[in-house]
């Protein structure tokens, strides 16, 4: 079936099987490999993208459900003017190591920042608990996000 949706501001139409996952369509069909596959069960957050501005785990999101919606991946976020500040602050705090969780983390952070849901340390810890990072111990990310939310 043909499914039309928007990815990073560009309209795309793809002939999809009903069971195809958004993560696979983004990575394999559209070549947008910033979203990563890891846990496959909506726990780790490495595959996070925004659908109509809200974070979703694209490993468990049917691509067909994106019909008529706006999908934002890290590649799209990186084109936005506000990304420069995210990049500067995350770099200064060394809030990344291997980088595998980083795109998903940034998409969650950007959405929660926009909705004012990262006020204070407890809110940050709670808001980002769905994005795992095995490398950093979270401290650098916490510092970076606290600065961004201040």
């Amino acid at each position, binding site marked *: 079936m043909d499914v039309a949706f928007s990815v990073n501001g560009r309209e795309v139409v793809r002939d999809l099987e009903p069971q195809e996952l958004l993560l696979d369509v983004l990575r394999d069909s559209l070549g947008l490999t910033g979203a990563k596959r890891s846990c496959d069960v909506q726990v780790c957050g490495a595959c996070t993208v925004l659908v109509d501005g809200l974070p979703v785990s694209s490993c468990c999101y049917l691509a067909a459900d994106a019909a008529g919606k706006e999908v934002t991946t890290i590649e799209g976020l990186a084109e936005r003017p506000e990304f420069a500040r995210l990049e500067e602050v995350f770099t200064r705090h060394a809030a990344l190591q291997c*980088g595998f969780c*980083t795109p998903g983390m940034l998409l969650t952070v950007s959405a929660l920042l926009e909705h004012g849901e990262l006020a204070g340390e407890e809110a940050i810890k709670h808001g980002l608990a*769905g994005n795992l990072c095995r490398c950093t111990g979270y401290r650098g990310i916490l510092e970076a996000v606290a600065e961004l939310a201040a």
Partner: protein
Amino acid sequence: MTSTVPETLTHVGRSHPRRDAREKLRGEAQFAGDLVVPRMLHGKVLRSPIAHGRIVSIDTSAALRVPGVVCVLTGADLHDIDPYYGHSIRDRPIIAIDKVRFHGEQVAAVAAETPAAAAAAVELIVVEYEELPVVSGVADATAPGAPLVTDRESRPGLFHGLGEMPARDGNVCYRYRIDRGELESVFARADIVVEDEYTFPSVYQYAMETHTVVAQVEGDEITLWAACQHPFLVRAEIADLFGVPVANVRIQVPYLGGGFGSKSYTKMEPLTVALARKAGRPVRIQNRVGESMVTTRRHNMTCRMRTAATADGRLLARDVECLFDTGAYADNGPRVVATAGDAAPGPYRWAAYRVDASCVYTNLAPAGSYRAFGATHLQWIGESQVDEVARRAGLDPLDVRRENLCAPGEEVRAGGKPLDADLVGDVEKVAARVGWGEPKRPLIGRGVSVGLLAAGAHPVSSAICRLEADGRVVVLVGTTEMGQGPRTAFAQIAAEEIGVDPDQVTVRGADTRFSPYDRSTGASRSTTIAGLAVQRAAADIRAQLESIAGTSDIGAGDHLALMRTHFGFAGGELIGRGEVAPIGTGSYAEGPVFWEVCVGAAEVEVDPETGFVTVLRTATAADVGRAINPQLVERQDEGATLQGIGNALFEEMVYEDGLLLNDTLLDYRIPTFEDLPGEMTCVIVENGDGPGPYGAKGCGEGALAAVPAAIVNALADAGVPMTELPLTPERVWRRIQDLKKEGTWQQ
């Protein structure tokens, strides 16, 4: 931060921003699963649903009829090669041959045009098994008359590295023993003897990027794009397995999405090559999380330990016996066991000690490296006994350590490198950060722990620096960038030596066709050993520039003019060479390259109604000799601290009769943001006492051994001594109920 190193450096010692930050933040950094090789097929592995059995038959006919399927590989396809590998013991078939020995072992592999076709085909392979008795743990495996996990003769692997290969004894594939002093007579005259049995669980490293490999076979040329930490060791094993020259195997290592030891040595590469060889086209195999869990894991272990001391808290003797469950194939088990054996006594002045550590085959998934292996297994046990000595002697645990810890220069392993760190200074620093000696409420406890990890592995690394005609520098070195930051640290080192800005230096990833030899990325060795090779290669460039100029008084602005003078045109490049080779034989017995310090402190609170343990504060000592990049050092310790919290409090692969029950992240929990301790401090200690560049020595693993031990001691200080990890609420609650029944619950 304490420093005795002169501050005469320009780029080293500064927290230079990560060179890979931009690529990684923008999602442009390429990992093995992001690469598309022309004509590439997708591989999918059929894995054993049982822990031990004979393969009676495999029917692939229905799978082969799935549209898009190119081939199915089984053990029968490997008749033309010696299909067994393993760097320590050559015991593992590329794919199951006749038998399966663990739940999840590879039985067949499909190559297809799409992942969906491969997945559909795997479901259609019909395998008939005849089940065999399951050896489900070390107790089973070492019982008289236990079934044998393998009846094959033990053959040493290419990188055994532990002296003469002992014969397999039943299910025991390796044994590490130390016997020093008159143990029994010392125990006989001791005032205090602490003795208990302990259990350490099987743990999953969870590198977020699962094992991923793309392989291509063209004639006798084999090319791999692999998420691997040790490309040069993998290259040798692949060449050996498939009978091609080492130089014909090319391994390119993209960014790794975490390693932590799980991608050390050879993992999914042989199977991917075998499948690509049969398919005649490139193939990618990308594990799912449940598959990576059974590709390698941290050894579970049981241990019996006793410690003898005088009434006034002088440590006398220690006796350690432990059984490591290495699963169906040895993987890095022998090295893990030897390292654990070295960590077992702890860095104290003993009159006598005995260690007997065994590496045992069972029908569990193979176990290998995970950050701070061996030390993490034993430090919490030994250190809890030191604290118990302190309690019985009525002394402050910190004072017992002040009295008994080895001093710099003292022997910590017979014939090995003397202690190269100030452990008393380190533990005092971390204790202060968790409020040691300050008043505390009931149910709060504080603990410290001290240990050593034999670090550096085999000290062979080399590097090449190229000063290009535009004045920029390229560093070729075999180190894998898996998050720990070598591309940044090496750029700083090269910049320091040559006299350019670190942003003018590019450090390339490992490609065995072009990168000079590097033994491995692991054992906290890269900054120390590969970093020293980079320093020497860069110093070589500097020497050439000074020779051309006839003076040492040159700046970065002079480089281009000097090169034009030298080459007579606007081209050419200066090539610098740096090598590190062992001093002595480089053998394990003479090592280690350095002792990595494992020192930490913790403050915890226990809820007696639920058994829930909250980590309030942690502190770790990064005793790094010289911090090339202090911010990256701190980040290493912080990451290891959170992994230590996970290992201590809740991480456990749960097995029942050889079957893994929690093979997804839904029921195998790793630390989230909400597990961050209230305060997490890393104390960087710089005494310039490392063998690496500028007196540096490695870090990043020690905290993972130190933190669980400090948490265990803190919980005992809060009233709940534990002998089994992880410290789940249920276990802690049950222990409290037992203490109440005994009348020893103190709160």
